């Protein structure tokens, strides 16, 4: 009997436990899920709490209710993983041995990793909404805010749900309009990126959405400090942005046991193959959910699609074969834009978010990158989908592979109106994606990637080393030596070579 241990009973861990239990008998596979508590959080709900649109009771449920029969749920923190001995050491001293380990403990916000993020203004004028206590405290701060400077700020990418901070400013705009004090509130959106979003078309559409709401945009802001005394955020290039209420999105890091186990990078993310989510350090370790180094969003939709690919590879893994199914980085996310409307993004490693309709061209019912009521209601409905279908591994009408149909690849705007919501939603949920999309052109698949274990660059922790911030504990790595080399010329046809260089915008 193979022994599988899953660290983390959140979105990815619960989903994969359900799918694996359904796919194999208890005689073939024992499954143990480890988490530090019995509270499963619907994390997309945190966004709505500060605006009083959801209550904590709608966000938290018992993990037990979603772990199927025949799976052990162990409630205890993880001390460390000894990958060499295939053993997980728990904080209570218990040891769990495994044949296969799935790391699904995600990432956590670390406000204290930013200098000043543990200062006296935290909980007063400095807030964050990426966990339940933070979102609850912010609800009170928003309720009593009478006007002034609201600054919404992203510390550093990657973060969980990269669109949530944008949604927050959209919802704040709407919230203060409803309270008839919008004119008394200055809203500034501060990002380390060079636009509202990383990808050009989405950045333009979302940038316009900020502008039309009179929300100021401050880009390329790398935060050095939250000054609790003057109530300013200060960047490394010494820009200062004053606030009366700061809503910061803290640095997201993996848990400390990852560093203690020597499995992580400087952010405690577990380096993994982009296609198979297999650890680069150990072929019997996989990382699902936010905790790995997939170059796509840290989001529930990615966890869902990645788990689907993992399940396709599972029989090959058991048979010791090469894993041939590759994740394409597919993510989709609903963006609440306030006033009962929402937008939708759908993208992967290769394809940026475009405008258009989803999932059916010309029909939708959802419109990509456009504000519609259908998109909002789909987001609202998703909470039900999450609790009742998604995490228990039931099939959803969204496939792991992304399709280009319905997307406007040119960056022209979609003028399509959204058809009847209920009809559209019902048809989306009823139809099975395999039949619907089976013969249609797929987006460019991710190129085949090596799936065998490679030597890791993660070395034993060094005794000492410089740190950005001692509170942001991270593993230290030995780097290969720099070797000077002679550059080779391009082999392109000389007739096609442009005489002048293309210089990026700096």
């Amino acid at each position: 009997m193979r022994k599988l241990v899953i660290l983390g009973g959140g979105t990815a861990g619960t989903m994969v436990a359900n799918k694996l239990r359904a796919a194999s008998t208890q005689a073939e596979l024992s499954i143990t899920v480890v988490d530090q508590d019995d509270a499963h959080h619907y994390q997309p709900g945190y966004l709505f709490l500060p605006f009083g649109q959801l209550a904590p009771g709608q966000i938290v449920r018992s993990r037990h209710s979603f772990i199927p029969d025949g799976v052990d749920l162990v409630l205890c923190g993880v001390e460390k993983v000894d990958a060499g001995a295939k053993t997980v050491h728990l904080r209570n001293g218990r040891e769990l041995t495994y044949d296969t380990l799935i790391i699904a403990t995600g990432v956590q916000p670390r406000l204290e990793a930013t200098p000043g993020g543990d200062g006296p203004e935290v909980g007063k004028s400095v807030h964050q909404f990426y966990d339940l206590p933070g979102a609850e405290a912010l609800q009170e701060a928003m309720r009593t805010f009478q006007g002034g400077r609201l600054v919404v700020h992203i510390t550093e990418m990657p973060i969980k749900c990269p669109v949530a901070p944008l949604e927050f400013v959209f919802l704040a705009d709407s919230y203060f309009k409803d309270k008839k004090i919008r004119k008394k509130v200055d809203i500034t959106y501060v990002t380390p990126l060079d636009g509202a979003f990383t990808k050009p078309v989405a950045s333009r559409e979302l940038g316009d959405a900020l502008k039309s709401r009179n929300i100021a945009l401050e880009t390329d802001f790398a935060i050095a400090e939250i000054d609790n005394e003057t109530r300013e955020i200060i960047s490394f290039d010494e820009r200062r942005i004053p606030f009366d209420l700061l809503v910061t999105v803290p640095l997201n890091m993996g848990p400390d046991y990852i560093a203690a186990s020597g499995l992580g990078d400087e952010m405690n993310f577990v380096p993994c193959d982009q296609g198979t989510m297999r650890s680069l350090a150990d072929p019997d370790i996989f990382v699902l959910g936010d905790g790995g180094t997939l170059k796509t969003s840290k989001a529930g939709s990615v966890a869902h699609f990645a788990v689907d690919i993992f399940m396709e590879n599972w029989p090959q893994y058991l048979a010791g074969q090469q894993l041939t199914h590759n994740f394409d980085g597919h993510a989709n996310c609903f963006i609440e834009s306030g006033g009962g409307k929402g937008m939708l993004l759908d993208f992967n490693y290769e394809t940026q978010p475009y405008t258009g309709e989803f999932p059916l061209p010309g029909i939708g019912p959802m419109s990509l990158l456009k504000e519609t009521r259908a998109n909002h209601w789909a987001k609202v409905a998703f909470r039900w989908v999450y609790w009742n279908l998604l995490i228990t591994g039931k099939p959803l009408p969204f496939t792991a592979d992304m399709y280009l149909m319905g997307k406007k690849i040119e960056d022209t705007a979609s003028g399509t109106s959204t058809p009847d919501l209920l009809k559209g939603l019902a048809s989306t949920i009823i139809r099975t994606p395999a039949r619907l999309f089976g013969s249609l052109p797929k987006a460019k698949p991710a190129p085949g990637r090596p799936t065998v274990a490679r030597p890791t660059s993660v070395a034993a922790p060094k005794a000492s080393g410089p740190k950005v911030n001692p509170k942001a504990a991270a593993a230290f790595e030995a780097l290969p030596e720099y070797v000077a080399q002679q550059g080779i010329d391009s082999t392109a046809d000389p007739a096609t070579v442009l005489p002048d260089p293309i210089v990026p915008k700096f």
Partner: protein
Amino acid sequence: MPTTMIGGRPIDVNDEGFLTDYAQWDEDLGKVLAGYAGVDELTDEHWKVIRFLRADFPARKETATLRRVASVGGFDMKNLFVLFPGKPAKKMSYIAGLPKPKGCV
């Protein structure tokens, strides 16, 4: 993907101008790229950062973020903004002939 002349050599770049082939870069090319990035002189301090980025890239297939440069490379973050003013992450990666670090979506 276009190919352009840089420093008298044909070099493959992406639409934004970043090099796409790790093997085409050398330190002489780095000096030329630095000029385009508005960094007129590359001091020893600049070279230490650039060499760190070059050494770090092959195993990870991804350009180190500023945080990684600071925490793993041991460089002072504030000084990176002095060495490569304005957009240090973008400038450093361009001069080192590496992809722009992904902000991730």
